[in-house]
């Protein structure tokens, strides 16, 4: 008997995926690149990006006509901590 599992990402996981996506693009990225990297719809991405801005993990900047999102030091620290936690959890076989 097979059971289909739909994998839900925690809020922290989604934040980490967004921040990682920005980091992979040199710490600064436009929304299109981020949504592909974090595998999110545009609406959900914008909702999470606003939360990340409020938390001080990301800052919004204008580059000509484009809006880009830049990782702050606090954001970089969050990514680093999350990667460590993820490695720790993985060693015990825990998915976060």
């Amino acid at each position: 008997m097979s059971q289909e599992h739909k994998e839900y990402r925690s809020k922290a996981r989604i934040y980490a995926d967004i921040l990682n996506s920005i980091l992979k693009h040199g710490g600064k990225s436009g929304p299109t690149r981020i949504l592909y990297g974090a595998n999110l719809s545009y609406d959900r991405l914008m909702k999470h990006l606003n939360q990340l801005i409020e938390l001080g993990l990301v800052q919004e900047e204008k580059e000509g006509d484009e809006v880009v999102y830049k990782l702050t030091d606090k954001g970089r620290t969050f990514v680093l901590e999350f990667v460590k936690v993820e490695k720790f959890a993985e060693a015990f076989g825990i998915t976060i």
Partner: protein
Amino acid sequence: MSLDWRLVTLLMELVSSLISFIVGYYALKGYRASGSRGLFLLYTGFMVLGMGIFLRLIAVTYFAVILGVHEASQSQLLGLVNLTVWIYSLTQLTAYTLFAVTYILQARSIGKQNIAAVAVSAAVTFPFSARLFFNPSLELVAVTFLGVVTVYSFMNLLLKRGSDAALVFSGFGFMMLSHVFFLLEVFRNLSTLSLFLGQLTQLAGFVCLLIMLARVSKTDVPRA
């Protein structure tokens, strides 16, 4: 056991207890960052385990080293010693149960819940001969629970094939081995050696976890 050996084993227990608290603290940090239920169970488990080992350490130091209570003693303190042994064993079993639950929840397997019943019935059938500071029946349950945890950590190692997973598997494996040695304490002629080897393998298990923690802490992400 001579006083020197007892001090060595006490020192090993102190280090094991401290490492358990450190791993627990790291799991708490992880839980705070991610909200993962598995990490919360791991945090609770290692904290309880650390407290149990620390309690035993205090009890052995006070009753055996300072007051000189031993198995042949007719002292009324033996009742108090037995109570300490039960508390120590139950804290360990609680911790191992939490570890097993963590893995079972993660695997979402069906039918593994019977493991607890098997462990309890194994304990009941085992000869109940209480020894000073160790309870063989509860040690057997501990071996069973840690056996489950070790098997799951081995499965995780097969999946991940990483050094950190290997260290966690070794850590739980050594801990299980330590309880096998504590179990052998029922054979009086092996008592001193098995107690020492038990403490040594327990420490080896915690050192494996500490090495894993040190490796994880060194992780870095590319600079933006």
